[in-house]
């Protein structure tokens, strides 16, 4: 399992390197990365008998953080799903992508994403789970924004990222709360009873739900998913069918064991899921872009899955897992089909297409199977899981069932709307010459469509898989069976009603369209989102204009006052930690006088040059003080820093405006004198009072151990490179970044000017 998770990460680096060299054939390497995930089928097949395996790699033991992967039936099933779809998507994109694509980048992102997803479903450690969760957000951001020169792709990527980051933060908080209340960061080691009794239970539950809803595009967070289709089609198939969006479903399924006992859990999830089902399929019916239709259909199907897992009973989970399998099969197949249509005709717009079954017969067959499975028609897998869905909802009241039927009827309608591109007279954009796609494209689509058929005709296969998953999630025994015919039941009647309603919707498609146009609300999730984003930008730019637009002296004044207030508050709240340490050595008095003289001199200096020289006085004065305190290292550093500073100052002189700084009013003068004096006095007092507060001094430890442990006689240096080496590493990183930032600022004037400069025009 560890290998299954890590191999995609390793091969991602390889793919990035191979991409420019092998071109599209990198896809074969990428498909290899999913082989270990496919091999997880072996432990899965023996699953009800064998206990779940646990592979733990220590990571940060002090934080109770480990790369722990637990192969229970549900995780393994999901990992297998990711492996299958991931491998197929990699192979599909070999034939799909154009020659000019940046393959290295594409496959590297795809593999990183696949690896994060595998890590997410297999992870047993809560913190690692959160880490993988965030990595799916980041990598999907990269994937959606792959064609980043298009503004729609950038917008979609940012939107997906912002929404899922909200959820990510919620999950971080939830994980922390669960870890605290449950006494462990390991999912399988949690003390569930303690968690339930804890007052943190409800907040953790709500935060988990927020995370799951954002990731799985439930209302009102569904807005990011349709724009995420800006990604290349193989990616969409991967993201939408098997993985990214189902992360939230996985979370609900897994954490249902922790939270399912609460009425709040199903009380929130089921209505939200059903609302998403209906609203998503309503929106899907309206789309003219095939991929947008599929995206909204994913939203609605996720609503269905959510509501079933949210029931947190054995029946719901059984039905949900069955539908999960079916959905992965038919949705990925449909995405592949849409990719073929797009590839062959150059468009995805429904009104521009028709009669494609004549030129794309194989694709049509795959599309028919998959779409009928989505519509819930026998003898396909989708029919069976829909029956189970109705059964589950039926036990919760007729209202739930009615909503479920409505949503499914809409699903039925949009499934047939999708198929419209294959009926009627042949119609396609004029410059396209559609003919059957190469096997690289049709085989993955066909395989998945056949799977949908197999799940229907041989329900035993899906049932075996579902039951394994169920057993592993500690579900209560559920005796249901997957079968095509189980007598005339209420669920069957509901199905018939669905078909009737769906048929009506298909038949009256024109009127439904009119109705939809009339019912379109003016505000929707997207307008709210853009209003929020714009609002944030406006507030931010106003804030920047108010604060950063000030002259430097004003900014300095504000900072000093703020620093004073914060420190003052600290002293006021906890005066006991400050106590005087007595008098400083008197021998340093002359140096101190030198320092003060330098500081005062800066204020009195009439020209900049004088000011710089006099500032040097304070610097060299400090160096002298360090020497007096027997710190030659510091003194040497101070001297050199001073020298470099002076050089940089002199170089920077050439840019400064010639005159002396801004005119100051008398009032300003007074303010500045007051500020400077109080800051100086305050800082002095603070230093004198707080040197030894809180903890005993640590210096004896370094003095004793620096030679023995670090092998150096210069304690300062040993601290820098050994004891506190990590700090130094951070500091030099900062130094490097500062240098690059300054360089950027300094070169700013040059770059922008060169192309249009007057000299070149002459």
């Amino acid at each position, binding site marked *: 399992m560890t290998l299954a998770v890590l191999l995609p990460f390793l091969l991602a680096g390889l793919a990035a390197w191979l991409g420019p060299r092998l071109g599209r054939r990198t896809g074969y390497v990428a498909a290899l990365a999913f082989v270990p995930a496919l091999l997880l089928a072996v432990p899965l097949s023996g699953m009800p008998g064998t206990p779940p395996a646990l592979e733990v790699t220590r990571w940060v033991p002090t934080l109770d953080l480990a790369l722990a992967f637990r192969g229970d039936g549900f995780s393994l099933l999901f990992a297998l799903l990711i492996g299958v779809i991931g491998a197929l998507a990699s192979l599909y994109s070999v034939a799909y992508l154009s020659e000019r694509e940046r393959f290295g980048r594409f496959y590297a992102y795809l593999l990183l994403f696949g690896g994060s997803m595998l890590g997410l479903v297999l992870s047993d450690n809560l913190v690692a789970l959160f880490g993988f969760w965030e990595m799916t957000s980041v990598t999907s951001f990269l994937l959606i924004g792959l064609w980043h020169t298009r503004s729609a792709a950038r917008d979609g990527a940012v939107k997906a990222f912002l929404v899922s980051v909200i959820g990510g933060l919620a999950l971080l908080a939830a994980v922390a709360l669960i870890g605290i209340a449950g006494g462990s960061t390991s999912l399988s080691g949690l003390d569930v009873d303690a968690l339930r009794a804890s007052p943190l239970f409800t907040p953790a539950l709500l935060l988990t739900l927020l995370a799951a809803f954002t990731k799985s595009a439930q209302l009102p967070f569904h807005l990011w998913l349709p724009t995420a289709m800006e990604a290349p089609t193989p990616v969409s198939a991967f993201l939408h069918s098997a993985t990214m969006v189902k992360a939230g479903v996985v979370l609900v399924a897994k954490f249902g064991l922790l939270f399912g006992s609460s009425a709040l859990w199903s009380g929130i999830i089921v209505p939200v899921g059903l609302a998403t089902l209906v609203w998503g399929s309503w929106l899907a019916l309206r789309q003219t872009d095939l991929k947008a239709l599929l995206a909204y259909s994913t939203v609605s199907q996720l609503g269905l899955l959510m509501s079933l897992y949210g029931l947190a009973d054995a029946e719901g989970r059984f039905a949900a897992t069955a539908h999960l399998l079916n959905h992965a099969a038919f949705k990925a197949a449909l995405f592949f089909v849409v990719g073929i249509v797009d590839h062959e005709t150059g468009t995805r717009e429904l009104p521009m297409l028709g009669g494609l079954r004549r030129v794309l017969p194989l694709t049509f067959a795959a599309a028919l199977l998959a779409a009928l499975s989505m519509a819930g028609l026998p003898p396909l897998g989708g029919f069976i899981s829909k029956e189970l869905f109705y059964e589950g909802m039926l036990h919760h009241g007729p209202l739930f069932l009615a909503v479920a039927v409505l949503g499914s009827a809409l699903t039925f309608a949009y499934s047939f709307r999708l198929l419209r591109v294959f009926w009627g007279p042949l119609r396609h954009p004029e410059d396209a010459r559609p003919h059957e796609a190469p096997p690289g494209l049709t085989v993955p689509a066909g395989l998945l469509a056949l799977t949908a058929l197999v799940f229907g005709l041989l329900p035993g296969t899906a049932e075996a898989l579902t039951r394994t998953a169920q057993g592993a999630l500690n579900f209560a025994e559920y005796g249901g069976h997957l079968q095509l015919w189980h007598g005339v039941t209420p669920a069957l009647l509901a199905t018939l009603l669905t078909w009737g309603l769906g048929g009506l919707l298909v038949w009256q498609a024109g009127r439904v369209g009119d109705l939809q146009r009339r019912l379109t609300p003016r505000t929707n999730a997207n307008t709210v989102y853009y209003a929020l984003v714009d609002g944030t930008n406006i507030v931010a730019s106003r804030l920047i204009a108010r604060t950063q637009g000030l002259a430097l002296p004003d900014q300095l004044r504000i900072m000093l006052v703020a620093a004073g207030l914060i420190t003052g508050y600290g002293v006021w709240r906890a005066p006991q930690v400050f106590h005087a340490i007595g008098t400083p050595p008197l021998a340093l008095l002359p140096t101190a006088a030198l320092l003060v003289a330098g500081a005062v001199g800066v204020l009195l200096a009439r020209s900049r040059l004088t000011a710089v020289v006099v500032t040097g006085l304070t610097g060299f004065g400090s160096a002298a003080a360090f020497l007096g305190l027997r710190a030659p290292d510091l003194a040497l*550093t101070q001297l050199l820093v001073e020298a470099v500073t002076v*050089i940089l100052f002199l170089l920077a002189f050439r840019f400064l405006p010639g005159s002396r700084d801004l005119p100051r009013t008398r009032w300003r003068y007074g303010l500045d004198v007051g500020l400077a004096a109080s800051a100086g006095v305050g800082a002095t007092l603070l230093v004198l009072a707080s040197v030894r507060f809180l903890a005993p001094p640590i210096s004896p430890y370094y003095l004793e151990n620096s030679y023995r442990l670090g092998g150096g006689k210069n304690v300062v240096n040993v601290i820098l490179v050994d004891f506190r080496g990590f700090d130094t590493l951070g500091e*030099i990183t900062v130094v*490097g970044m500062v240098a690059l930032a*300054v360089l950027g600022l300094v070169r700013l004037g040059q770059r922008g000017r060169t192309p249009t400069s007057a000299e070149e025009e002459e």
Partner: protein
Amino acid sequence: MSPKRRKSATLPRPSEAAAAPLAGDPILRSVSRAAFALVILFAMLLLWRGHNAPGGGFIAGLMTACALILHRMAYGHSALRLDPARLVPWGLALSLVTGLVPYLLGRPFLKSDYGYITTALTGEFEWATALLFDLGVYLVVVGASLAIAYGLIDVEPDETVEGDG
């Protein structure tokens, strides 16, 4: 030296006239030739002995930067054949790798090691992995301060940024 330097420099270099007022003084040239070598040697010494006596990567880096700036001012071109900003990532990488090696060997991240070797030439001789780490610090400091200084030297003084009165 000149064509090679130009090739490796990534920044669009302004006309050499910008640096001209700083270069060309014969006294400055003569003095800096001697001083440059001495200062660099001293910086190396500081870097080397930092572990046991005052010195270390940071100080040595600053001192080297001073010497290189002096050279640049006297001769109008850098003694380095590459863009100093490139030293920064190399230095960071060196320090990071120095830290990673003990981690991969199963010891704490950045744990340094040291030991003693006796050779006929040097007598007892201490080696410490901390020196490599310090070398990384040195490279970062040299790169960063030189990048800023060269950047300031390279910009023409009378050039104004857009929208700047």
